[in-house]
């Protein structure tokens, strides 16, 4: 049996690519090595709780009727209505640094007002930066030269604290590069977080993923779980077939892989790895702890939807020298979204930058102890800024870069993939394309759009001979 297209990975980008292809009558198979769909945005179950992985909030929120926003494009391309996603907006989020605090909501004017009040000398520069961002085409699929956002921002804003405060959420929610950010990525993240904003789907990732899987299957798409790629076979630089672990061979006219760029190439002919630029492997990863509470976060003094904090005077976004960096992080209170009725349980999530190599080197027992030890350290530092909630915790769980590697296969457990993005998705192998994190659109909406764009660009816009 020959497929028109095999999609590797059933995360958001793979599912979206699959839906687009199946919609236009391509014979398409999605293979997933894990037993659960979702990839980097998935879920797991512990003690009757279904817990989202990756999802603090969906960025890129735009209201019903907005059709040319990333969310609007996603909905129309996948033929969903806005109501299908059951999105509820955030309340208020904030960026908290030692002497400054900037609040923001899904109304961009609040952030402008906060900057005007707290950084009066910088507001003119900030407004000029916003103009530049507004006129920037960040969704172009053609590659440009890497542009340092730190340099660009330095031309508009002089206070390093404000620069750090703007970077903090944008880096935490989508930067694969340490210390700096490619400017087009900065623009994507700035628009998706500050100008569009946060929402959460009622029912979490489980709900959204089911929606996509159901649509894919109803269009005739085939999804195989527990199917891991062993080799991707090419002849004279053209994709021929792939073998699954266990030996089975599958053939198709084309492959779209969401495994990651290096992750894909290392399953191909070994000579291809020689062409991979040094430093293409992602490094940035996180430890995340979640705390189920016996009351609402608000009752404990946690009134924000998301808080990006830094307890140091300078914000460092890099692989930490210790197992985790407790000096900055992200706090998410899933309860503090404008749901029609309160969620069944209070929860707080805490995310810190983490060092994959150090976690990976620990023997099992030490690994388990280290999770507890560093979770405690992270909390103690957090409680220098925010109220202590430990007495209200009824369940907690922690995952590390090692967990992320195990379930997603991303090298170094890198959540945002390779620092070198491949905007056009083209690999050295003809008819083998990349989508997802390493193509360069990030977040839930971004990943989904990535799958859509790559399916459109490389398969649907080309006249492929009908399947025989």
């Amino acid at each position, binding site marked *: 049996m020959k497929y028109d297209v095999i999609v590797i990975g059933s995360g958001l980008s793979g599912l979206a690519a699959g839906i687009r292809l199946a919609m*236009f009558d391509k014979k398409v198979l999605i293979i997933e090595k894990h037993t659960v769909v979702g990839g980097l945005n998935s879920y797991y179950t512990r003690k009757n709780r279904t817990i989202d992985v990756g999802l603090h909030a969906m960025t890129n929120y735009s209201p019903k009727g907005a*059709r*040319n926003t990333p969310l609007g494009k996603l909905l129309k*391309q996948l033929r969903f209505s806005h109501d299908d996603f059951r999105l509820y907006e955030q309340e208020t989020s904030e960026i908290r640094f030692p002497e400054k605090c900037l609040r923001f909501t899904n109304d961009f004017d609040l952030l402008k007002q906060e900057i005007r009040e707290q950084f009066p000398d910088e507001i003119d520069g900030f407004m000029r930066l916003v103009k530049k961002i507004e006129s920037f085409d960040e969704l172009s699929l053609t590659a440009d030269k890497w542009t340092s956002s730190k340099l660009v921002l330095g031309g508009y804003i002089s206070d390093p604290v404000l620069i750090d405060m703007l970077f903090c959420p944008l880096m935490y929610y989508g930067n694969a590069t340490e210390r700096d950010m490619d400017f087009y990525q900065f623009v994507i993240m700035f628009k998706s977080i500050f100008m569009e904003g946060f929402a959460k789907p009622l029912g979490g990732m489980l709900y959204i993923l089911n929606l996509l899987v159901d649509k894919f299957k109803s269009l005739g798409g085939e999804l195989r779980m527990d199917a891991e790629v062993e080799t991707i076979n090419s002849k004279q630089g053209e994709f021929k077939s792939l073998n699954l672990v266990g030996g089975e061979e599958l053939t198709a006219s084309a492959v779209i892989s969401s495994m990651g760029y290096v992750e894909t190439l290392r399953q191909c002919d070994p000579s291809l790895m020689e062409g991979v630029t040094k430093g293409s492997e992602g490094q940035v990863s996180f430890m995340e702890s979640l705390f189920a509470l016996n009351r609402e976060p608000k009752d404990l003094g946690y009134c924000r939807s998301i808080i990006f904090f830094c307890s140091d005077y300078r914000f460092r976004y890099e692989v930490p020298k210790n197992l985790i960096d407790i000096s900055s992080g992200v706090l998410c209170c899933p309860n503090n979204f404008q749901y029609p009725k309160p969620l069944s349980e209070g929860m707080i999530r805490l995310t810190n930058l983490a060092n994959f190599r150090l976690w990976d080197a620990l023997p099992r027992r030490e690994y388990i102890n280290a999770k507890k030890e560093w979770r405690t350290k992270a909390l103690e530092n957090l409680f220098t800024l925010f109220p202590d909630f430990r007495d209200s915790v009824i369940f907690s769980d922690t995952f590390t870069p090692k967990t992320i590697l195990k379930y997603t296969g991303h090298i170094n457990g890198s959540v945002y993939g390779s620092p070198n993005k491949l905007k056009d998705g083209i690999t050295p192998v003809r008819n083998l394309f990349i989508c997802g994190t390493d193509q360069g659109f990030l977040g839930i909406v971004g990943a989904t759009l990535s799958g859509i764009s790559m399916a459109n660009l490389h398969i649907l816009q080309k006249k492929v001979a009908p399947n025989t």
Partner: protein
Amino acid sequence: MTREDVRQAVIDILGDIAPDEDLSSIKDDLTLREQMDLDSMDFLDIVMELRKRFNVEVPESDYQELISMASCIKYLQPLLKDHQLAS
């Protein structure tokens, strides 16, 4: 297909692409883009839906024929004359 059938076929496609849009007020002589905020992704979808539903190929050089409802009908009616509108 009659002129009215072709119009309905286009409306059906637009309804699929833009489920949240009110299509009852579409004016035939105005461009679709200004009434519905369509982008290049949408035009690609109109072309692909035409291929899927009616086996009609619109070459890229003819995309401008789809600019308004009136021009869609004028362009598509000869191509769809042997088709029935699916009920």
